[in-house]
């Protein structure tokens, strides 16, 4: 955990780079030992973690709420997909770049009028945006493929990578592994840049407008510009996550990014811990394996997964977890680390104290 702690201290860019690189390689190694299904789940989790990180930045750092990030995901996803319909051979990096730019632009368009809004009004405005995206995708058939959506080519696994696998289902295993590794590397890059932002003057500007906007103006911060750029960055991350999600699944349609996904993102962010890198990672992991958790609990309690109760089990679990988090760990699971350490420390101190007596 010292690695993660060093991410938070006053450090340099290359030490941050080394930490993110090491963690990325560690996760890549872990995926080698996971079954293909878990790899695919983890890959989606990585995409979602990027989006959660962007949301965490917006809410935790700039103090603005958004229920529109599923909409920004859709913008990134459709940009990548529509582009791929015409230019199937574009390198992945450029596709991601396009998704970030388009996501960020849509964020800026939403942000400029909404920087005058605060709290619930801002939430309402962004909610309207994410509600509007799906009907737009449905009705703009000529561009978006309408109800059926669009299909992309599957990610091609390079030959050298295929050769590393042998035995039954070698190709399937290799493909799942490759997709997962791509997703993790993309997430690693995104986390590195966000870590930079967290520790920069821009990051501090965000905390200033969050804490006291009058005082922030007096130290020379342009509120509209700063709030808008927070939105743009958050939406750029959402665009990247959405594009990654769509490329992994090789398809996108109007119901891929429903309004409820925005709520799920918010829930995952709170569960993991608002405004932290590790919180976004934890949120992504919970997303990856929530289906397994739901199956497990259905099996334990004997609830039929096809029943009404079984179908809504995920919402119930998230709801209960959310309430528990708000009550007992307002800084999320990532925030538990500090109090836990203090607890063990004070207990140790207590022990030594008794020994002295």
């Amino acid at each position, binding site marked *: 955990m010292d690695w993660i702690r060093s991410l938070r201290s006053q450090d340099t860019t290359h030490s941050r780079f080394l930490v993110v690189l090491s963690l990325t390689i560690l996760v890549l190694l872990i995926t080698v030992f996971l079954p293909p299904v878990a790899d695919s789940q983890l890959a989606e989790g990585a995409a979602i973690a990027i989006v959660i990180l962007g949301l965490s930045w917006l809410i935790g750092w700039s103090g603005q709420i958004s229920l529109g990030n599923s909409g920004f995901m859709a913008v990134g996803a459709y940009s990548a997909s529509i582009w791929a319909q015409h230019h199937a051979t574009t390198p992945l990096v450029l596709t991601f770049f396009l998704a970030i730019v388009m996501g960020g632009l849509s964020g800026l368009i939403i942000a400029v009028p909404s920087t005058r809004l605060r709290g619930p009004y801002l939430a309402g405005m962004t909610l309207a945006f994410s509600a509007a995206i799906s009907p737009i995708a449905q009705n703009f058939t000529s561009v978006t493929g309408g109800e059926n959506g669009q299909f992309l080519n599957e990610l091609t696994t390079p030959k050298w990578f295929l050769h590393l696998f042998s035995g039954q289902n070698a190709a399937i295993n290799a493909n799942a592994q490759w997709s997962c590794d791509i997703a993790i590397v993309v997430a690693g890059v995104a986390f590195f840049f966000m870590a930079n932002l967290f520790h920069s003057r*821009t990051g*501090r500007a965000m905390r200033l407008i969050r804490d006291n906007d*009058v005082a922030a103006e007096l*130290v020379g*911060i342009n509120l509209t510009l700063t709030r808008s750029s927070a939105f743009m960055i958050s939406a750029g991350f959402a665009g990247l996550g959405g594009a990654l999600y769509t490329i992994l699944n090789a398809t996108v349609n109007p119901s891929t990014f429903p309004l409820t996904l925005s709520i799920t993102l918010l829930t995952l962010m709170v569960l993991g811990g608002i405004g932290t890198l590790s919180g976004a990672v934890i949120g992504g992991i919970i997303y990856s394996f929530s289906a397994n958790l739901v199956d497990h609990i259905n099996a334990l309690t004997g609830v039929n997964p096809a029943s009404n109760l079984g179908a809504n089990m995920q919402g119930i679990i998230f709801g209960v977890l959310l309430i528990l988090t708000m009550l007992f760990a307002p800084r999320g699971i990532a925030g538990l680390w500090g109090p836990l350490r203090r607890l063990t420390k004070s207990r140790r101190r207590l022990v030594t104290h008794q020994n002295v007596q």
Partner: protein
Amino acid sequence: MTDTTSRPITLELIDVTVHFGGLLALNEVSFRVYENEIVGLIGPNGAGKTTAFNVACGFQKPTSGSVHFPASGHGALRPSQLAKAGVARTLQGVGLFPQLSVLENVMAGAQSRFGDGLLTSFLGLPNGLRTEKALRQEALGGLERLGVAKFAAAMPGGIPYGIAKKVSLARALMAHPTLLMLDEPASGLDENELEEFAHLITELRASMSVLLVEHNMDFVMPLVHQLIVLNFGQVIATGAPADISNDPDVLAAYLGVEE
């Protein structure tokens, strides 16, 4: 009322009038702050002192009249442009950022001295890191100068009021201002702290003008070069403290003498 000295004027309000609905908060208020001068803006409650401050800072748009910063060549400024134009203002009370450490609060004061640098921040470029490092040193130096360096790592909620006031002054000074506007700097301070503060402000005068709104006359009188007395939104007297203290209008305003 107008001073005819040839010294540069840092801040000038010309015939500023502010209406709040039917209420006349300021009525054709004009005054000047000269370079390296300490000016006190005084008056009973509701006289319009804070409104005048807010007009000068761009928080309040005047109904008529204008604001200028002749020495730096600026007209009226928006609040976010002040710091860059060399105007720093403290807020009534403390006005610190509650979730930033004392050191970061002070570093925030220099936010305007550098460009936005979004790309620098995003890529973690070395020049951004260098300025952060330099800022941290300068902020520590500023805290040291005010004798509160040992609170650098504390959070604003956990430090005494007098210390917090010094921290907010240190933050204002980080902008390298040529005009420092202090909103009730003496409120809530004890005798010793008042003396220290008065001493500090006198020292600052060497490199900047100071305009302060204050209730505490014992604090203001020996400190300032020029007093501007407001009552019911109007300037009723301007001049050196010694002259003002004998002005019948001022005495009436303060003691409530019936006319």
